[in-house]
């Protein structure tokens, strides 16, 4: 393959944009599952930033970090979905505003 250079700024900007979009989605959504999906988007964007950084320095460290993030996201999704199941069972709705007994 011929040598090419992808500007690092472009990669980081992409990661940043995706992160913002995920953040926006977390803020405006009431459905819990959508919040979870948005968190996944944010995690993926953070991982992208790591890969870009690792590729810039030509080290495998960035990819190693991404593997860890992946593991953590997987564990988090499984536990989070189990919790969502319980919430749905208790409250009969997926509205996150319904789970407000800890207010005040």
């Amino acid at each position, binding site marked *: 393959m011929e040598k090419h*250079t*992808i500007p690092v700024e472009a990669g980081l900007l992409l990661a940043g944009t995706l992160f*913002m979009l995920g953040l926006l989605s977390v803020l405006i959504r009431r459905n819990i599952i959508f919040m979870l*999906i948005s968190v*996944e988007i944010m995690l993926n964007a953070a991982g992208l930033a790591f890969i870009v950084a690792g590729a810039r320095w030509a080290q495998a*460290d960035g990819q*190693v970090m991404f593997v860890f993030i992946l593991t953590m996201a997987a564990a988090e999704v499984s536990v989070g979905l189990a919790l969502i199941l319980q919430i749905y069972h208790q409250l009969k709705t997926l509205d996150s505003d319904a789970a407000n007994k800890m207010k005040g």
Partner: protein
Amino acid sequence: MLTTFYIASAIAVVSTIMVITRHNLIHALMYLVVSFLAIAVVFYLLGASFIAALEVIVYAGAIVVLIIFVIMMLNLRAESVDEEKEWMKGGILIGPSVLAIVLLVELFYIISNVGMTGVEYHDLDAKAVGLSLYGPYVIGVELSGILLMSGIVGAYHLGRQKKKIVHRFLEKVEE
């Protein structure tokens, strides 16, 4: 290569915006898969072929599928789409958008100030990742194992539904 990169990133951004704005859960998840695939392409372009494969297998293939299964288990009614429309009325976007845009602007500012060089294409394949992972970062591997273990145990325990068990004699009396 550069054009491929720009196309893939555009697809990623667009599909993410679609994820954000859908009312139907399953539709949103479909767009999410597309977004992940686009990101996988970007990873490949950056030389991380192993990670690209992982992204597709684990993220798009396992996590999203898990979410789809759970949605299926929830047995949502058709009215849930209408509820979603109800919740996502117009004015809701203003405040968060402002915050997100401010943050994005700051990010742009920081990144552009630093002034970095381009990324040359280096092929860091699975072997390099493996050597690094099981070399200096082996403790992270152990910790990830523990994390996954706790995830499994937690998911099992939290997902259990405890039914109220009534004695069969009493059941008959109720009827």
